[in-house]
């Protein structure tokens, strides 16, 4: 690179080394992974998109029907409900797991006693699978022997907690269970981020008399940007693929009130033997993710590249 950008061209060798062969051994080592990524991610996505334009039933067949599958998909009220639900679930779990996770991490970072114990307690739900989480919350929220029963037995007979049988609230039951399961991980990541902040910064801010909350908000959080990005990616991936939690907790019910897109895809592909419809739904999911991901990726990584070039130049 230097030989091209440097106008003096002080290097005696005329030919610049071929870019392709730089770090050759590293590139060779990465080949299997690159191949896997291409075949599995790109290849299979292309296959899915291709067959979403066919009328495939339980086996893939090349009988093209244009965009019929998509027309039917967007007319289906279950799909509309699913998209609405994933939006609610996504926004709630993103916002709350970040806020609650960060606050818990801050709380643990106060050099409190029994920090290990608390950390374990908060992180423990993450060790459970979504299926177990769903079952546990199904029991907790069950109206005949869950929280409602306990509180009614305490004497508050009019108390009612009908998250699971109320069609407007069922999706929030899933949000709650998801948060209970996932917030511990966010907390652990945030705590690691907080610990990586140089203590000198805290000393400096104390000398300047800046209150702790302002230090967190304006100094520490901006410094933790990489941690936030990692966390965001993890949470977002969890949101898109939420399926098992719904199956275990509500099975999409009551009615279709807590259906999610991944469940629609699964049900139509496997239970209802309509591959074309399932693939159309999964293609819409992929497109939605890409619409969010590409601008963000360009902003996040495109910017860095530009900055790096400025520094290099």
């Amino acid at each position, binding site marked *: 690179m230097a030989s091209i950008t440097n106008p003096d061209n002080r290097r005696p060798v005329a030919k610049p080394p071929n870019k392709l062969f730089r770090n050759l051994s590293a590139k060779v080592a990465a080949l299997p992974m690159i191949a896997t990524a291409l075949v599995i991610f790109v290849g299979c996505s292309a296959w899915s998109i291709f067959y979403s334009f066919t009328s495939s*039933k*339980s*086996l893939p067949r090349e009988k093209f029907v244009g965009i019929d599958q998509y027309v*039917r998909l967007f*007319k*289906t*009220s*279950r799909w509309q409900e699913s998209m609405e639900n994933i939006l609610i679930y996504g926004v709630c779990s993103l916002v709350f797991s970040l806020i609650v996770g960060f606050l818990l991490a801050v709380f643990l970072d106060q050099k409190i006693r029994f920090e290990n114990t608390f950390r374990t307690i908060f992180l423990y739900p993450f060790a459970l699978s979504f299926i177990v989480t769903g079952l546990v919350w199904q029991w907790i929220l*069950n*109206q*005949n022997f869950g929280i409602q029963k306990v509180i009614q037995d305490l004497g508050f007979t009019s108390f009612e907690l*009908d998250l*699971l*049988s109320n*069609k407007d609230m069922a999706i929030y039951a899933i949000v709650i269970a998801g948060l209970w399961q996932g917030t511990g991980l966010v907390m652990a990541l945030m705590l690691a981020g907080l610990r990586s902040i140089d203590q000198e910064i805290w000393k400096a801010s104390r000398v300047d008399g800046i209150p702790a909350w302002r230090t967190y908000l304006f100094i520490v959080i901006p410094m933790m940007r990489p941690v936030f990005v990692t966390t965001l990616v993890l949470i977002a991936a969890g949101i898109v693929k939420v399926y098992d939690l719904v199956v275990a907790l509500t*099975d999409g*019910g*009551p*009615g*279709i*009130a807590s259906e999610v897109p991944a469940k629609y895809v*699964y*049900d*139509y592909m*496997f*239970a*209802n*033997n*309509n591959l074309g*419809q399932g693939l159309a739904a999964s293609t819409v999911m992929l497109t939605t993710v890409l619409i969010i991901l590409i601008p963000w990726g360009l902003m996040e990584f495109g910017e860095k590249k530009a900055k790096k070039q400025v520094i290099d130049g």
Partner: protein
Amino acid sequence: MKFKTSLITSVLSLGLFGASASATATDLEVTHWWTSGGEAAAVKVFADAFNAGGDNWVDGAIAGSGGTARPIIISRIIGGEPMGATQLNHGRQAEELVEAGLMLDLTELAEKEGWTDIVRPSKLLESCTLDGKIYCVPVNIHSWQWMWTSLKAFETAGIEAPTNWGEFVAAAPKLREAGIIPLAVGGQAWQTSGMFGVMVIGIGGMDLWRSVYVEKNMDVINGEDMKKIWQAYDDARNLTDPKNSIQNWNDATNQVISGQAGAQIMGDWAQGEFSVAGQTAGVEYDCLPGLGNRAVLDTAGDAFYFPKNDDPEVTEAQLRMASMMLSKEVQVGFNLKKGSLPVRADVDLEAANACMKKGLEILANPENILPSGDQILNRDTQGQLEDLSSEFFADKSVTIEDAQARFSEILELAE
């Protein structure tokens, strides 16, 4: 050290024993979704009979409804890891698997044992047949068109037990006053959608049913008669427990058994639960075929398919199992436990209870027999109807008109 050697020898001898045993007996894994009390008892009849023949029944019960089990079963067969035998509802569910050549052809055995002569109604074997070849063994006749009433519940409410749907709807307010849920239903979609099918036949009658599901006559589907069905369905959703948290059908049946609920619309497999609970038809509970209005039953049922296998020994064991399932004693034993009717007429059903006898009487007249939903609609259409009915049932803001319009859209697209 000594312990170690003895352990090794015992493991070796076990291995040898296993090898010698497999020469005569073959393990066959059988997948099915029969997990409620009555169902499990019925499966045991099969397993015992198969083991008595010297083979080994490896039970592969899949918990949950057919909706959970079917995808697991189908993906195992497609994925090249077939089980020895599997339950599926006959009809169109396995059609594509058969077309793809993944199922064992049973024609030879069927001809030898004369299945076409003994299986009744013959339609059952027809749904197992593709291009003149037989691919499955029908094992029972189940029909959906039953309403089960708890006599105790009506006694508690101080009213006569209803003999048809209209009387039941009229009696419902009294049940509510007595703190009894009029209609028990589980949350799974197939239950509400099955209930709808029962109402079309029970309230609308055979002609309406035929023009809706078989002929798919759009004028009828959008017409007044069909609207009446949706109104009755609307009544039904208002008769259920608004705080219902029950998912499984057998839990709903249990509400009827214990008298917490007045009635349930459910297929005759519910009968297995009543008999496990030790109740007698006509004493503690009663049954109303065709909602008490019309003596009509469909003849759906379960069938066993045998996925193709490379091992000739397994194939032989599969044929042995197929033959066992249709044998007289097994048919009687199995169906008495399951609450269903046997697929052959030449068996002795002295032990059958009052409800089963009602059923047999109805089936004796071929005009009373309907093809089942599994046989006329494919899974895709059924799935859409299930989504619609479960949404309608849970969400009271979906009006009768909306639902009817969407129902007609789904049937218009149906193949």
